[in-house]
């Protein structure tokens, strides 16, 4: 029996169109826009100013607080401006715009293709290098990695779980990485194990990626204590809590960190970034992005410098199709719809998905027939229909007791609803309202 | 408030059953036919008028703290009088209404009027109020009884309207609730239309 989380989940059409497309390195763009807040936590503090010359890999904004991450220039050139620029969601945020000149890298960075197996850094050095390289969770959550590696003193990590599930439909960036950079991944895992002082690591991969499972399984023979767990293909298998449950059988208690049950989860993309940071001294300045969509003429997986505009990326993939309705940053289940393609790729961009107008239209909302399908698929054991009903009648306080903050916003409920009700939208609304109520209470 | 308004408010705008939802138990329990509803309504009206008169007469004599017990005794006396009289002269109706006759005493309508109106107003107004409220109540009961009788037994005031049996449910408990529900919805609607 394949491992999986026991309750809920859905199986949307996989649509992994780009699974066979080898990663292509995108040419360096003419201009990059690098926001200083590409991670969860405090925005980084800008340390360059207009007209400064920067090199590829040079730090341009410094981590500003414990939960924060450094930002580096992904190109070499001149700082054009440091200004508030609308991001993908339309909010103005501070960003550094750099005009590209040449491609001059910092000399400290090892640009060779050689695989360095020997881990020479000790625990503290590893943590410092990860911090300095601005590594964050590349699965989409963008939580600063060095923070995750420093769990509260009272909790002891026991196992490192590598998230190779890639449960979102369409996306194949992690899959390509696992195939193409297997060796580096395994070394990265070793580094993380050292950093966490754990002697067990498990890579969880959904069984719709048999090549990746096979390749890693073969190679992992050379490394001690790294296991591969084949998982049932089920969304949201890659949700942190679901993955831990699937791999270890342990449930992270509501409102607690995963390390409470001894587990630390890292995405494969992150692991690769850690490898590069520690072994190659290379900060996080590029990543693999899947550009996909049913109507795209040349979808694929691209290695992209952070800050490259989405438009450029789409053009490489064949240009925006006529019937485009939606551009999504991320996967179809949890990704965000962009208001413009004139925005930069960030550390958290795992994919760019183009949906046609037809696919983007939401069907009209019909009355809830209490079929309980949303309850059935909710991986957190919540009752989405009830949360929505309460929230519709503005009974927000009541939703708190119904576990609204346990919701991981995976969207399974909205996906499955036969009446096309926007369950997650109402849950988000209620979350916001309850947070406001909580805040108001605290002030009192 | 003029006298006419005191008298008529119980018919519609402050109807005990449809608007104030008072005295629900006899409303549902005794309205298996129009005639039963009317009988119950009139019995209640009698008690209501008499207790209103007496309460209005003695209101100054009753210390505030024993107001409610005193009212209850007054009402209960009239209820017993109605009970005995009906037993003597209309035994058939008495049998049908049964338990609900002594229960007139806990009909919130009567205590409510004594408390809210008769204890604050003069005797003439109290009589008018009692009559108006009582007739409004009787009207509601008769109406409910008539609808239930028509739907349930195919007749109204024992006069056959259509052949065959009606839908028995309406003579039984479930029908009582359902018919009253729709009657209230209807009255609400009419009232809304009037106010617009």
């Amino acid at each position: 029996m394949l491992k999986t989380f026991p309750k809920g989940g859905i199986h949307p059409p996989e649509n992994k169109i780009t699974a066979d497309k080898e990663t292509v390195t995108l040419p360096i763009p003419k201009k990059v826009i690098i926001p200083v807040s590409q991670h969860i936590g405090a925005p980084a503090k800008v340390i360059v100013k207009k007209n400064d010359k920067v090199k590829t890999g040079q730090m341009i904004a410094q981590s500003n607080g414990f939960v924060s991450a450094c930002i580096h220039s992904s190109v070499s050139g001149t700082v054009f401006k440091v200004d508030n620029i609308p991001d993908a969601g339309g909010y103005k945020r501070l960003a550094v715009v750099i005009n590209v000149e040449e491609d001059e890298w910092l000399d400290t960075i090892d640009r060779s293709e050689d695989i360095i197996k020997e881990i020479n850094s000790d625990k503290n050095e590893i943590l410092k290098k990860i911090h300095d390289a601005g590594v964050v969770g590349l699965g989409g959550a963008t939580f600063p990695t060095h923070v995750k590696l420093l769990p509260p003193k009272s909790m002891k990590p026991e196992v490192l779980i590598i998230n190779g599930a890639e449960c979102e439909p369409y996306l194949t960036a992690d899959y390509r990485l696992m195939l193409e950079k297997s060796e580096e991944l395994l070394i990265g895992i070793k580094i993380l194990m050292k950093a966490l002082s754990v002697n067990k690591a498990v890579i969880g991969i959904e069984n719709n990626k048999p090549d990746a499972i096979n390749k890693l399984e073969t190679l992992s023979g050379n490394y001690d204590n790294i296991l591969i767990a084949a998982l049932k293909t089920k969304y949201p298998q890659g949700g942190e809590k679901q993955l831990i449950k699937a791999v270890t059988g342990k449930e992270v208690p509501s409102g607690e960190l995963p390390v409470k049950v001894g587990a630390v989860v890292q995405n494969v993309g992150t692991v690769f970034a850690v490898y590069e940071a520690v072994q190659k001294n290379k900060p996080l300045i590029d990543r693999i992005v899947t550009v996909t969509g049913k109507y795209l003429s040349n979808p694929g997986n691209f290695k992209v410098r952070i800050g490259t505009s989405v438009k450029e990326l789409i053009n490489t993939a064949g240009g925006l199709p006529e019937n485009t309705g939606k551009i999504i940053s991320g996967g179809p289940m949890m990704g965000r719809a962009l208001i413009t393609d004139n925005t930069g790729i960030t550390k958290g961009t795992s994919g760019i998905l183009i949906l046609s107008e037809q696919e983007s239209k939401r069907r009209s909302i019909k009355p809830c027939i209490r079929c309980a399908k949303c309850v059935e698929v909710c991986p957190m054991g919540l009752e989405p229909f009830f949360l929505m009903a309460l929230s519709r009648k503005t009974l927000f306080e009541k939703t708190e007791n119904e576990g609204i903050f346990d919701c991981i916003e995976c969207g399974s409920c909205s996906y499955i609803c036969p009446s096309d009700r926007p369950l997650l939208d109402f849950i988000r609304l209620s979350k916001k309202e309850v947070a406001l109520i909580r805040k108001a209470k605290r002030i009192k | 408030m003029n006298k006419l308004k005191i008298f008529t408010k119980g018919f519609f705008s402050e109807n005990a059953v449809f608007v104030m939802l008072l005295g629900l138990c006899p409303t549902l329990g005794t309205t298996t036919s129009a005639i039963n509803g009317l009988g119950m309504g009139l019995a209640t009206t009698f008690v209501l008028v008499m207790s209103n008169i007496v309460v209005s007469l003695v209101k100054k004599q009753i210390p505030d703290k024993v107001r409610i017990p005193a009212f209850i005794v007054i009402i209960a006396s009239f209820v017993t009088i109605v009970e005995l009289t009906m037993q003597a002269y209309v035994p058939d109706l008495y049998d049908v209404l049964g338990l609900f006759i002594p229960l007139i005493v806990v009909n919130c309508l009567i205590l409510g009027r004594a408390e809210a109106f008769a204890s604050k107003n003069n005797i003439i107004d109290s009589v008018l109020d009692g009559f108006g409220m009582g007739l409004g109540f009787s009207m509601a009961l008769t109406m409910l009884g008539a609808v239930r009788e028509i739907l349930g037994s195919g007749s109204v005031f024992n006069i056959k309207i259509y052949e065959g049996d009606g839908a028995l449910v309406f003579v039984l408990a479930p029908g009582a609730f359902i018919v009253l529900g729709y009657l209230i919805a209807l009255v609400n609607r009419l009232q809304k239309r009037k106010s617009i």
Partner: protein
Amino acid sequence: MAQRESTFVNMVVVLFLISAIAATALAFVYQATKDPIQKSKFEKKKQAIKNVVNDFDNNPIEEMFKIPVEGGDSVECYPAKKDGKIVGYAVKTFSKKGFSGLITVMVGFDPDGHIHKTAVLEHHETPGLGDKMQRNKSNFSKQFDNMDVPDIPDKDNDGIIIEVKKDNGTVDAITAATITSRAFCDAAERAYNAFKKIKK
């Protein structure tokens, strides 16, 4: 005149007075209605007897006697006389075989053993089904009018004469209410057995 104060003495006195007046008034009304109530109860019973037997001029209620029947119970029997001569008996009988609870029936007999008429006094049968045994609701009970009980053959030799056709008797059961019909027959049979004892 101002509102009376809520002093303890006042409260006790007022409540006592009100209660006393009420009690007196009720006693008076009670006295006044006592006889009419008695009379109406009496008339009701008399009417029930009148409904099932021939015209009489005596007071059957005063001459009522009880007849023991099987099972340790007894039924009330009201003899009806005209000019001192027996013109029939009204038997207040019952059946426990009804659908829900006791069924009480008044069965009137002519002196020769014919059933004169029947009347249901009390029952809790299902409305629309069992309650069709009432005279005004269906023709079922009319089958018993002038029923010549002594001449009914006991086809299945089980000692029971008044039975529905399903049980090899002569009575057409009420549609979809066989149980009530059986209970009604059971009551009539009980009355007939009591009647036979009178005759002896």
